[in-house]
């Protein structure tokens, strides 16, 4: 295998939403080509929004909401376990990101007077800004990126980060088409690798039928961990209410403002708010498994023209194949309710609060290493959070590199990684990657899917440690298969982190996301703290509490519980 050696000032890993704005912003201040964007797929269709997005879920539009209200809402939604400064930094910088997107040609829904047409989906405030033509979003980002002068490298997968003492010094990986080993020496690294979306196994049994883009296999969580960075809130899983089997969002955010509801099998509403939080998911879970289950998205009471409008958005954006899914089963929004279920577990700070620890500058605990988007812990940060924090990371990384030189010789690390990565190619008849992956993810379902208990979590952890040994039996016969094998390493790492973090926090918090049957109560006296983990000097995974920084937007005790009790007090029948 040949080797490609590249030098850059800043390397961005992952060309989705966060990676695009990070690379564009960094390149603005540097000579052409000194910013490298590494993408495992191809930037024109990569990341969580490969097919676009139907709206911004957390837009703070002047006149509709304030930064302080938003910080309060997300503090509530994440049961108080937040670094408010990081959320505030998003809140005050995100509106200018919307204006920039508007200039780039992204079309937002506006009312008759030309103002942004904001909708209420969250429990308290109004933050949802529809993008009915959001199918163009990724194309627009790609166009801006190509004009910017960023050096774009597609189909190269990062497998480890280079370290020079304490600081990060580059990225190692390989080309998933021709197998070329890739060394990128850089002054700073911005990880934008997305969620750990291939962790639990979808109920369908199809490995790639995940909620998240299956390219997002937890690469960034594992890269950051092995570079020595702290991760946080890993026990605060991502679990979403989805269309059963199809496993994509039923889209209450799109349909809710147009009159759609989440209901039980009797057609009755049971939750106060459709906004995805752990407490909402707890009520969803209870209803699903009750005599009133399953749960449905109800649209069959809406006018035909409203249904046409809904289909116009849902069949063109985000997961458009839902149209052929419903049609194949002989169902329609006008005649039938859409059956829903609960997704497999994942890790994602875009939706919940599990990610790499970052401060309000996007810095991890490793000097020179920044991270943004779904993998960076700024809870409930969604698409606009990724775009905003990509820019913030780039701005701070530019300051950092002013006093840093590219590291000279790191040949020991490079040789060791080359040997590790290519080892599976020496056993083309080893265990196939898909069998290994199926087994680990099936065990994730068996032992980590809430409700959690110490006995099950411990058994799961034992299995994931055994899986680490089994990885030395997994083989690959091509660079494509090698990509899947290296993803299997990431998936297993994430499973171990999820088991250990869930065992460590001996209380229940975030509704279903961390519901411990053996510790069913929320326990602020002992657990009003972040649970962080890192790789210690001996190479072992170590867990510890990190105190919550004093709030800059204070909440009283009742407000902190603002997202508890989302069940409608008395079931109300919908007027037919």
């Amino acid at each position, binding site marked *: 295998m040949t080797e490609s050696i590249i030098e850059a000032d800043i390397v961005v890993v992952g060309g989705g939403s966060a990676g695009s704005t990070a690379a564009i912003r960094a390149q603005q201040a540097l000579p052409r080509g000194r910013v490298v964007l590494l993408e495992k797929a191809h930037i*024109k*269709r990569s990341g969580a929004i490969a097919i676009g997005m139907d709206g911004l879920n957390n837009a703070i539009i002047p006149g509709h909401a304030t930064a302080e209200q938003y910080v309060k809402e997300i503090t509530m939604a994440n049961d108080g376990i937040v670094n408010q400064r990081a959320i505030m930094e998003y809140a005050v910088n995100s509106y200018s990101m919307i204006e920039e997107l508007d200039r780039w040609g992204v079309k937002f829904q506006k009312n008759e007077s030309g103002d942004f047409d904001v909708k209420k989906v969250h429990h308290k405030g109004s933050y949802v800004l529809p993008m009915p033509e959001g199918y163009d979003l990724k194309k627009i980002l790609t166009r801006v990126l190509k004009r910017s002068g960023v050096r774009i490298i597609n189909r190269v997968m990062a497998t480890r980060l280079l370290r020079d003492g304490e600081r990060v010094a580059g990225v190692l990986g390989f080309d998933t088409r021709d197998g070329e080993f890739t060394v990128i020496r850089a002054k700073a690294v911005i990880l934008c690798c997305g969620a750990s979306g291939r962790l639990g196994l979808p109920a*369908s049994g199809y490995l790639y039928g995940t909620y998240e883009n*299956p*390219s997002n296999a937890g690469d960034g969580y594992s890269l950051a961990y092995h570079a020595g960075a702290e991760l946080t809130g890993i026990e605060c899983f991502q679990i979403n209410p989805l269309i059963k089997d*199809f496993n994509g969002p039923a889209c209450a955010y799109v349909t809710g403002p147009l009159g759609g509801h989440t209901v039980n099998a009797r057609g009755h509403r049971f939750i106060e708010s459709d906004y995805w939080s752990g407490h909402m998911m707890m009520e969803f879970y209870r209803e699903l498994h009750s005599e009133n289950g399953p749960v449905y998205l109800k649209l069959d009471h809406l006018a035909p023209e409203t249904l046409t409008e809904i289909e116009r958005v849902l069949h063109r954006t985000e997961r458009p194949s839902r149209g052929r899914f419903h049609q*194949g089963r002989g169902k329609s929004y006008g005649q039938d309710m859409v059956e829903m279920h609960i997704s497999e577990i994942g890790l994602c700070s875009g939706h919940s609060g599990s990610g790499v620890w970052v401060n309000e500058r996007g810095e991890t605990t490793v000097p020179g290493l920044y991270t943004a988007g779904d993998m960076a812990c700024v809870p409930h940060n969604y698409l606009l959070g990724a775009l905003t924090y990509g820019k913030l990371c780039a701005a701070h990384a530019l300051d950092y590199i002013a006093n840093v030189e590219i590291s000279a010789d790191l040949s020991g690390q490079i040789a060791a990684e080359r040997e590790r990565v290519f080892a599976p190619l020496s056993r083309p008849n080893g265990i196939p990657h898909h069998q290994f992956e199926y087994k680990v993810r099936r065990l994730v379902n068996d032992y980590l899917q809430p409700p959690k208990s110490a006995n099950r979590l411990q058994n799961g952890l034992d299995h994931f440690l055994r899986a680490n040994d089994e990885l030395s039996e997994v083989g690959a016969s091509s660079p494509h298969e090698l990509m899947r094998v290296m993803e299997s390493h990431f998936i297993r790492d994430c499973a171990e982190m999820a088991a250990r973090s869930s065992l460590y926090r001996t209380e229940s918090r975030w509704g279903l996301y961390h519901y411990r049957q053996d510790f069913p109560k929320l326990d602020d006296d002992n657990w009003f703290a972040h649970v962080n983990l890192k790789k210690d000097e001996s190479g072992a995974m170590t867990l510890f509490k990190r105190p919550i920084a004093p709030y800059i937007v204070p909440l009283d005790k009742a407000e902190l519980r603002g997202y508890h009790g989302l069940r409608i007090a008395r079931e109300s029948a919908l007027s037919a």
Partner: protein
Amino acid sequence: MSELTDRETVKARQASLVGNAQTVRRFDVPVVVDQAKCITGCRICIDSCPVDCLTVNPETGKANMAFDECWYCLACEIDCPKDAITVKIPFLLR
């Protein structure tokens, strides 16, 4: 009885040391390419696929789904300039 136990002990040890045996099986895959419409040498859909599950079939020069790893996202279908691709929902989900 003791003879059986011994046999299992011996085979249990052997099972942990012996190499791998393999077989292949067919899969129904979601991406269906109209061979007549697909342009030989065009790689647009192959670039589009976020999971890299499409390749050029070396025998026909046309695109096909080589790995059963589809997210049914429709990137290939939407980006194909000849409308040669139809993505079905994977059978396990259909």
